[in-house]
């Protein structure tokens, strides 16, 4: 009986070799998620939209043709006969109700909007993760004290959650007085319970997993287990949520500004405030409302697309 030999054997061994080590380094879950993200059209569209938005927000204000607060064309606005100059060579998006260049205001407004969205989300993420993380770790450590800490923190979060988010934001804005900082704090506070609950729930689920038990049986200390295993494995949903929260934060900030609780410095344009100002002129110059509204919608959509794509990429169940 001739056993396999010669060329064919070589070929088999080579194939086996290739199969075994097609790439030398291992691929971590994050790397694989990134790989999947790059293949998802929704992620690419979202990333492109956000990229453009970021560039405009960061470099735009240095390149604007006119100062956004200068009322250069005030004389041309005829409110009594319903005339506000529209798009033309020197004002691409026309002029607003007190004669300021709408294009420059949109560009500078992008930066404000991004700033509010990012800072508000950061506040929510930081405070929410801290509370959720402590509650999750306390619940995970167990014992009477652990459960007590978890209970107190979570009932507090429930209280926050019980209030309608916009109402909560309005109350905070009313207490702190109208300003851009207020908007950030208010919008951030609203998202605190979401992050807290998410991280805590995710941590508890991870604490019950076999690899945590395995680490315990190895003799690893509890705090080390929490930091090395439970937290890293609980982060994926929080990151996705942060991306999605950016979208809602932008919308909520706009809503607060629209209600007059936001930026009280009229010289710094902000899309929400621009939208609020435009409502009186909606029949004369609808573009003054449509442009900032479009801006808000497109950026919010960009964040949502990217967030959803990340959710898919990070979902262990969808991994092949």
């Amino acid at each position, binding site marked *: 009986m001739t056993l396999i030999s010669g060329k064919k054997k070589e070929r088999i061994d080579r194939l086996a070799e290739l199969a075994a080590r097609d790439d030398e380094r291992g691929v*971590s879950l994050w790397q694989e998620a990134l790989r999947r993200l790059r293949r998802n059209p929704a992620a690419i569209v979202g990333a492109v939209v956000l990229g453009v938005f970021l560039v405009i927000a960061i470099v735009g204000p240095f390149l604007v043709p006119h100062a956004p607060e200068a009322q250069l064309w005030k004389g041309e606005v005829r409110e009594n006969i319903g005339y506000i100059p529209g798009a033309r060579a020197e004002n691409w998006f026309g002029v607003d109700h007190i004669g300021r260049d709408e294009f420059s205001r949109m560009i500078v407004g992008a930066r404000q909007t991004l700033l509010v969205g990012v800072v508000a989300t950061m506040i929510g993420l930081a405070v929410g993760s801290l509370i959720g993380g402590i509650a999750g770790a306390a619940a995970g450590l167990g014992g009477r004290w652990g459960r007590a800490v978890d209970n107190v923190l979570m009932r507090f979060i429930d209280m926050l959650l019980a209030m309608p988010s916009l109402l909560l934001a309005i109350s905070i804005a009313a207490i702190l007085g109208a300003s851009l900082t207020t908007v950030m704090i208010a919008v951030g506070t609203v998202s605190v319970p979401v992050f807290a609950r998410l991280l805590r729930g995710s941590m508890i689920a991870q604490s019950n997993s076999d690899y945590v038990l395995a680490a315990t049986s190895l003799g690893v200390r509890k705090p080390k287990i929490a930091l090395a295993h439970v937290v890293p494995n609980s982060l994926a949903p929080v990151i996705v949520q942060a991306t999605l929260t950016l979208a809602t934060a932008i919308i909520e900030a706009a809503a607060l500004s629209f209600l007059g609780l936001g930026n009280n410095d009229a010289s710094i344009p902000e899309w929400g405030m621009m939208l609020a100002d435009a409502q009186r002129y909606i029949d004369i110059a609808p573009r003054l409302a449509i442009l900032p509204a479009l801006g808000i919608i497109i950026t919010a959509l960009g964040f949502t697309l990217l967030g959803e794509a990340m959710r898919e990429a990070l979902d262990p169940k969808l991994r092949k």
Partner: protein
Amino acid sequence: MSEQSEFLVEVRDLKVHFPIKRGVLFERTVGHVKAVDGVDLSIPRGKTYGLVGESGCGKSTLGRALLQLTPPTAGEVSFDGVELTKLAPGKLRAMRKRMQMIFQDPMSSLDPRQNVESILTEGLQAHGIGGDRDGRRKIIAETLDKVGLPRWALSRYPHEFSGGQRQRIGIARALVLGPELIVADEPVSALDVSIQAQVVNLLDELQDNLGLTYLVIAHDLAVVRHISDTVGVMYLGGLVEEAPSDRLYTEPLHPYTRALMSAVPVPDPDVEDRRERILLAGDLPSPANPPSGCRFHTRCPWAQPTRCADERPVLREIGGSRVACHFAEQIASGELRPHKVSAEIVRPEGEGDEPGVVSAPSEPGSFV
């Protein structure tokens, strides 16, 4: 250690009861799931004790309670003469390097964000074994050889391996600390048949070479019998029979063991056609509300009107086996004949197998 006992592990009257809690804000305990309810067993050094039983019988909980991963409600666990249940947390942690665990699902028991090197280093770091990085590397390399994994595995992540290789990683993780006892909870049941045999053989080899003591927990009687010297059969939180592996097959004494044995399919048509099946009626009763007397009497084809329903049988020695049945001798001699049993409806407690996992563990999300 002044004198070395023959047994590495001795478990006395071990009980693990999980409270069933109701109520949202103010929890109250409405009952207990008696996952393990009074188990005695001893594992000789260098031997394998196999624990077999169906889902919900408490075998996994027993394994975890033995390692103090689930705190026992009552009873004693002595490991090499040290009473584990009374050990201070720091001392227990230090003991852990001497007793390790292998899990059923190699995927879920490996942290998906750790590569193999980090998985294997973690335990060494926790116990300060191996000194510096190079020392640890050497130990890890030796361990990889023992379980038959190649060096390039070190930089890889669990999801890049096949099921069988993942289980080898799990075994390596347990082995790297140089333990004396390994508790293997369903070590092969998540694997394909052809891979099962590889892992079973590996466990056998490791025992031969390293003198390990095993507690192997599985639902598959054929697997357990294959790798165990002594087999304990569990039913509803208690041991019903314990016997040397071969004796258990040739002379099963407890009615439940007989039924279990007759239910296991054998890949041989001649055997399959010849054998007589003892079909049990109905399902396993709920461990929250176990039957009185002998736990098995509601399904037992040999149940008698006297004693079975009101007196819980204790394990007693009969010709080399230990069996918990009032009428074991009469059944063995054929004096008692089986009769028909009608099935009772048993309500599921929830989804999953082990009651400990299913219904409100004492501490939700406990790391322990």
